[in-house]
């Protein structure tokens, strides 16, 4: 007689829940020491629902299938020298940011979920975190493999993990994840599992990746979509976590709301770099940052928060500021990198005239008024042979660690300054959002490793900026940095294409 096939619910129960055990002789609290200190109250872990009932055997089966497809494409990409098919060599600089700024976050996510998964008393949550941890490890690995092909032909890829730990602008993503990972397990889940995965990774992995495809980069779009197929599971886990916490105890609502406020703000700040990658670094355009933001943040996030309203959860604090900033941040960020092009591990450039017109069309309220003049100035200086590289070092926000490039939304030509005093020390911020986060946990953020201050303290070598770039950051000065025009990347590309 053939054995009856189990349905997925039963199979899942047998392979997960029933593997848990009772703590008959050991103290359960000692087994899960991190479960209480954040103030979250869990009354019954068995109420945890897993939306995807993926057991380990099915997990491996489908992940293996994804990997086979992915690596077949990587092989085809390499065998066909498909780096030659990208729309424009400028595009590759976005991928350099990806490898140095994003892939190491996948590794941090892997570490974070491994740790967090261990700390939850509920077996459903533990299993889900364990799978997510494996997924994130797969993401970093596949990204390194995909980009190793570019590393053979373009500059700036060689020291990505060293750079992630040291380079000034990479302290932004690094410190974001360090903040989440040094929080308790529940905050980590709201930070990464919910806020980051549900709304924010979509913006990077969906419209940007579609843009990669549109720019002829099949390797990147494929690892992107392959990773994002796992993210779909992660997002669902994030939503499950939040519903579970809100249903467990009414006291959890206020704590969760505070984390949502914090992490949506931090996430919006972090995504500034993605905004710039979409608007300025994809030569073939799919959609503007503003349009992507409207679809994936305002529409998708709006639906999500309407759904959560029944628990007493409201939209993240400062949503109205965030809404206005979509008109500005990509331009402010690219200008920052353009003017610091000597200190970046990738190339920067003035947008072409067609690109400037596209920006005017996509940002009719702001581009011509506030941002086109900056490019007119840059062009004028370049024509005189004085390509504009700023001197000196910028003031940074203590919380997000981004240079103070953001402006007042009711006065967009004015830098937004905020500050507070704690134990007699002054601290500076780019926004009320970043200030609130500091004031809520000053003992955490007094430890911000701000790259500019570290340079001044002599902890990064130097004092000459060139020495810091080469010796401390491991950039190949004169090769990895500076303008795209005249760069070795550009010269090689022209040789390959047989153009002078």
């Amino acid at each position, binding site marked *: 007689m053939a054995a009856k096939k189990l349905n997925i619910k039963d199979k899942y129960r047998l392979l997960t829940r029933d593997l848990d055990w009772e703590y008959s002789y050991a103290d359960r609290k000692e087994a899960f020491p991190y479960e209480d200190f954040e103030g979250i109250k869990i009354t019954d872990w068995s109420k945890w629902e897993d939306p995807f009932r993926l057991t380990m055997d099915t997990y491996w089966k489908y992940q293996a299938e994804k990997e086979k497809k992915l690596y077949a494409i990587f092989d085809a990409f390499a065998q066909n020298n498909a780096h030659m098919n990208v729309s424009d060599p400028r595009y590759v600089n976005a991928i350099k940011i990806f490898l140095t700024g994003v892939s190491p976050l996948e590794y941090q996510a892997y570490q974070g979920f491994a740790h967090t998964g261990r700390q939850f008393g509920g077996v459903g949550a533990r299993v889900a975190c364990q799978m997510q941890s494996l997924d994130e490890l797969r993401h970093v690995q596949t990204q390194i493999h995909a980009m190793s092909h570019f590393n053979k032909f373009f500059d700036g890829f060689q020291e990505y993990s060293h750079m992630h730990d040291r380079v000034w602008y990479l302290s932004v993503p690094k410190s974001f994840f360090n903040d989440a990972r040094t*929080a308790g397990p529940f905050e980590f889940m709201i930070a990464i599992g919910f806020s980051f995965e549900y709304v924010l990774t979509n913006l990077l992995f969906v419209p940007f990746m579609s843009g990669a495809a549109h720019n002829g980069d099949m390797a990147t779009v494929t690892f992107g979509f392959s990773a994002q197929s796992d993210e779909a599971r992660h997002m669902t886990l994030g939503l499950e976590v939040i519903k579970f916490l809100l249903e467990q105890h009414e006291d959890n609502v206020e704590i969760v709301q505070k984390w949502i406020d914090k992490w949506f703000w931090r996430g919006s700040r972090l995504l500034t770099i993605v905004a710039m990658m979409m608007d300025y670094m994809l030569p073939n355009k799919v959609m503007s940052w503003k349009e992507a933001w409207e679809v994936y943040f305002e529409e998708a996030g709006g639906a999500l928060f309407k759904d959560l309203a029944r628990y007493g959860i409201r939209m993240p604090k400062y949503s109205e500021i965030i809404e206005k900033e979509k008109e500005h941040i990509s331009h402010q960020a690219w200008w920052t990198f353009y003017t610091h092009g000597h200190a970046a591990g990738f190339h920067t450039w003035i947008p072409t005239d067609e690109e400037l017109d596209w920006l005017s069309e996509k940002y009719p309220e702001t581009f011509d008024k506030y941002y086109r003049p900056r490019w007119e100035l840059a062009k004028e200086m370049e024509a005189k042979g004085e390509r504009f590289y700023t*001197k000196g070092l910028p003031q*940074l926000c203590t919380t997000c660690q981004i240079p103070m490039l953001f402006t007042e939304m009711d006065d967009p030509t004015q830098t937004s*300054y905020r500050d507070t005093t704690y134990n007699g*020390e002054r601290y500076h911020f780019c926004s009320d959002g970043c200030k609130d986060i500091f004031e809520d946990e000053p*003992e955490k953020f007094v430890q911000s490793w701000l790259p500019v201050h570290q340079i001044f303290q002599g902890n990064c070598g130097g004092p000459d900026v060139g020495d810091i770039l080469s010796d401390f950051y491991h950039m190949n000065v004169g090769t990895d940095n500076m303008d795209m025009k005249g760069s070795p990347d550009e010269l090689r590309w022209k040789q390959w294409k047989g153009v002078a």
Partner: protein
Amino acid sequence: MAVKAITPDYKGEVLDKVENFGGNQVVYVGWDHHLMFCAPFAFPLPPEMPFEALRTQVMPETFSLHPEFAEIDWDQVSWKLDGEDFVPQADVALKDQGIGHKSVLRFNTPDLKGYQGAGV
């Protein structure tokens, strides 16, 4: 609570205390409505430096790339120190006129509107 931590009375190490800067203090300087420079500048300066040296030696190193910088009439400039109106004294040391570690100095040039009058 100053931090939510599993360790009771957790205290973080203040990484940017003035003692860590080898005798200098950090001073930030920003030019209002002039965003050719994406952000205010940070300068490590001796607290004994007279204001005049900051204005005529340190600031031009970074700000003079701006086409309007040479046109500034410094008698007309208004200043803010840490958010308050401020009248700098040229020959007085920074520390003796309240410009301390991590102070923000902002200057405003109402007649100069930035490149193309666009706040650049």
